[in-house]
């Protein structure tokens, strides 16, 4: 990354914006000015639309935004975040620097790294959002770190995810609690576990989880991959996968295409064990008739990978003020509590709840817990995401080995 290039681009964007009032870039630090400008704007929020619960939450947010700040929020439902990233890139290629079609994008990891690298994002703005302070970034560095990269205020935290395993207790009583145990379990229960096909996000996360557990050189994973001996570091992973694949679903000859597809296979009784990035997924799926009541959730003994997901504003958005107002509302205790509620979505908060005032703290108290839910203290051990370059390198290596039959 070349910081002076980023700076130059930001300055150029700002200058351009000053010249064109239609696309004025608001000054994030003058919050009242941002709100004044935001009023009446329509914000196109590009967010994955594969889950009706997420969609319903976003619809709730849209109603609140209209009522409170007079900003109209439109949810652009994506089947793949990459398509919105592609869109911004195509607009840049065509010279459309002020009238972009994406105002806010739900993002993290590789997509964020790629957009930052190409100067496709507006910022820094996150630290200027009044509600951002409630995340207490000094004590919770994960809200300003995305796959080891500092966010530098170019994206604002929205929610938290962590790998969570779930199993059907009607078919298996003692699910594996480590990667080594998983291999033994798979041998005893052939065809009843699998992971999504790379380069799927959830599938790639499984590779990283396995690598962290199997490799002795964890430190290397938090530096760019070019700084270490990739083959040596990843050797235990490939040995492990070579041993595991014959015992997977379809004997490893085919892999489901996404994380949600794992859930469908659980629902069909094809698998007895699966995992998800959303700790509440199993409980939610039971409520929605997708999984049997006998499903239970747990995390691995050494902890599991977790990350924060964010929202970012493309450099050519014509409604940056509205997008910032939206990002700020998403961080409000009320919006975060709604999001965490199992009745609404079940996505964990990024706020430091213990430091909120009593009234706000009370918003986060949940009612009855569901038997398929994780116990409250289960997520205490969160492993941080490796550097994003590892994800790409692992995906390429996987494809090289297992991409064809």
């Amino acid at each position, binding site marked *: 990354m070349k910081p002076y290039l980023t700076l130059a681009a930001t300055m150029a964007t700002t200058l351009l914006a000053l010249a064109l009032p239609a696309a004025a870039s608001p000054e994030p630090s003058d919050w009242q000015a941002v709100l004044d400008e935001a009023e009446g704007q329509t914000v*196109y929020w*590009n967010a*994955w*639309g*594969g*889950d*009706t619960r997420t969609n319903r939450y976003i*619809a709730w947010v849209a109603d609140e935004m209209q009522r409170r700040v007079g900003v109209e929020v*439109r949810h*652009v*439902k*994506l*089947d*793949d975040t*990459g*398509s*919105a*990233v*592609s*869109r911004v*890139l*195509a*607009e840049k*290629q*065509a*010279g*459309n620097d002020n*009238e972009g*079609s994406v105002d806010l994008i739900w993002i993290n990891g*590789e*997509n964020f*790294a*790629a957009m930052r690298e*190409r100067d496709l994002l507006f910022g820094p703005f996150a630290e200027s959002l009044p509600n951002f302070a409630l995340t207490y970034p000094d004590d919770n560095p994960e809200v300003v770190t995305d796959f080891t990269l500092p966010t530098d205020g170019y994206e604002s935290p929205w929610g938290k995810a962590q790998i969570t395993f779930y199993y059907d207790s009607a*078919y298996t009583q003692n699910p594996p609690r480590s990667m080594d145990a998983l291999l033994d379990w798979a041998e005893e229960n052939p*065809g009843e576990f699998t992971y999504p*096909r790379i*380069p799927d996000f959830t599938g790639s996360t499984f590779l990283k989880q396995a690598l962290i557990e199997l490799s002795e050189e964890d430190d290397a994973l938090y530096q760019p991959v070019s700084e270490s001996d990739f083959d040596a570091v990843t050797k235990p992973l490939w040995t492990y996968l070579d041993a595991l694949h014959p015992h997977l*679903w379809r*004997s490893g*000859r*085919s*892999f489901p*295409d*996404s994380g*949600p597809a794992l*859930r*469908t*296979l659980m629902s*069909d*009784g*094809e698998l007895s064990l699966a995992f998800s990035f959303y700790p509440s997924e199993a409980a939610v799926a039971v409520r*929605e*008739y*997708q999984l*049997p009541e006998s499903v239970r959730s747990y995390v691995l003994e050494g902890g599991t990978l977790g990350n924060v997901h964010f929202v970012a504003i493309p450099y050519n958005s014509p409604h940056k003020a509205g997008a910032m107002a939206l990002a700020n509302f998403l961080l409000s205790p009320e919006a975060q509590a709604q999001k965490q509620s199992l009745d609404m979505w079940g996505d964990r908060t990024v706020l430091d709840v213990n430091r909120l005032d009593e009234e706000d703290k009370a918003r986060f108290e949940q009612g009855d817990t569901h038997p398929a839910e994780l116990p409250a203290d289960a997520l205490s051990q969160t492993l941080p995401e490796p550097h994003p370059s590892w994800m790409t390198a692992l995906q390429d290596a996987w494809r*090289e080995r297992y*991409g*064809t*039959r």
Partner: protein
Amino acid sequence: MLRLAPWLLIAVLVVPVGAGLATLVMPAFGVHPGLGATTFTLAPWQALLAWPGIAQSALLSLSTGLIAPLIALTVVILFLAANQGTRLDRALHRLVSPLLAIPHAAVAFGLAFLIAPSGLLARIISPGVTGWERPPDWLIVNDPWGVALIAGLVLKEVPFLLLMSLAVLPQLSPERRIELARSLGYTPSLAWLKTVLPALYPLIRLPIYAVIAYSSSVVDMALILGPTRPPTLSVAVLSWFNDPDFSRRLMASAGALLQLGVTLSALILWWLGEQLVKPFGKRWLLNGQRTQGRRVWAAAGRVGLTLTTVTALLAMVGLGLFSLAGYWHFPDALPASFTLEHWQRAFSSLTLPLTNTLVIGVAATLIALVLVVACLENEVQRQLHPKHALWLLYLPLLVPQVAFLFGVVVAAESLGLRPQRSLVIAAHLLFVVPYLYLSLAEAYRRLDPHWMQVAHSLGASKWRAFWRVRVPLLLAPLLTACAVGLSVSISQYLPTLLLGAGRVPTVTTEAVALASGGNRRLIGVWALLQALLPFIGFALALLIPRLLRAKRNPRRGVS
């Protein structure tokens, strides 16, 4: 004015496709100003060729593109040969349009659920027949040879080719040909194959080519049913365009051009096949055999079409069951409980996608109808032979969507055309026009010119004759063509998403976005909604002429 119509029509279709393709060529050779790449290089092609499984991917696309149309065509031909005028014939005719109305993705989801080891068929016969308490670990959907994908394509292509054949058959007067052949001692099926088929094939050749191009480059069906290790080329190309690693964009452009090459190869191979079959065919036609394999022909014709029809219907039944299902344990043939919750949730967010779908579909169909009719009317009035240049009409069907739509986005952005509903309508025109033309042209041309001459001799002006004579006489084919156009528009995914930047949600974009969440109950709801709209279109196309005819009784329309 009318003289300009064919050129206008061609411009509307060729310019965007050309611009889209042109925008791809530069990045394919390493030049992409948006990525700061400015030097000409072959690196994207080298990266493409080094990609694991690229040859297999290309080969899969090629074989799917040839095998699916071959099977579909065989089923259609055998059916037509074996079942002229039987009751089964008429019953299946009535089912053709609704089957054509079901969007590809919906059929794919339905088929996947039907044939999977944990699917509807397995549930019906388990555990009674099979003894399965858990689904068997068999690789059926996403099989590496693309069999499931081919099956899905055949389900959609049979009704299309059948409808196209039925549209042109009457002008060949098949009854007269068969009568003549039968008087020479040929059995009915052989008579049809030897006297009608050789005349029919040239008339449905373009639809067949469109089907080949489609099968070799299909994305949505391949994502659901196709092989995965590696996937078909079109699926791989799409994933590179959406890859977070921007350097893949250049390779994606090269891949899109390779996809174009694969599609062209499939078309050329088919054409070569035609040339090869010709001499053999001629010998077979003249070999004098009159009764050979008579039962086999008849049986094959019935079985093929019945099987495809029943499979498609069962697939829809499965989707319907799931859209109402509570939890559904594996070997149970029916869900443990039923709920309307999934439908209720869909209805709460249905207004905007539904409005958009209808506005876009109706607008694109009407514009396409005016263009196509103007073009045909020009041809008929001036007694021209169909222009050779008109094959350009089919360019958007022959060039794979992934190969030019990404380029169209950049081209539109460069011209300052921002994503909006009208741009989506323009993009849909690319696909609605050729299909509408395919459906209407033969009926339009074969209308007996004497009708118009009589109208003129009674003193009617050109326009009056057109409105009072031609339109009423052609009402049924006009409406059917509109229904086809509407269903094509409704099923468009990539053009809607890319040209609308996702801001113009339709029933189809909502369905695909939700499908990525893998919730089969919601997929069932949205796939059925997606199928319902074109179905209404086809029903209206059948009903309106009947109602009008009933009103005007006893005068009867020409069919």
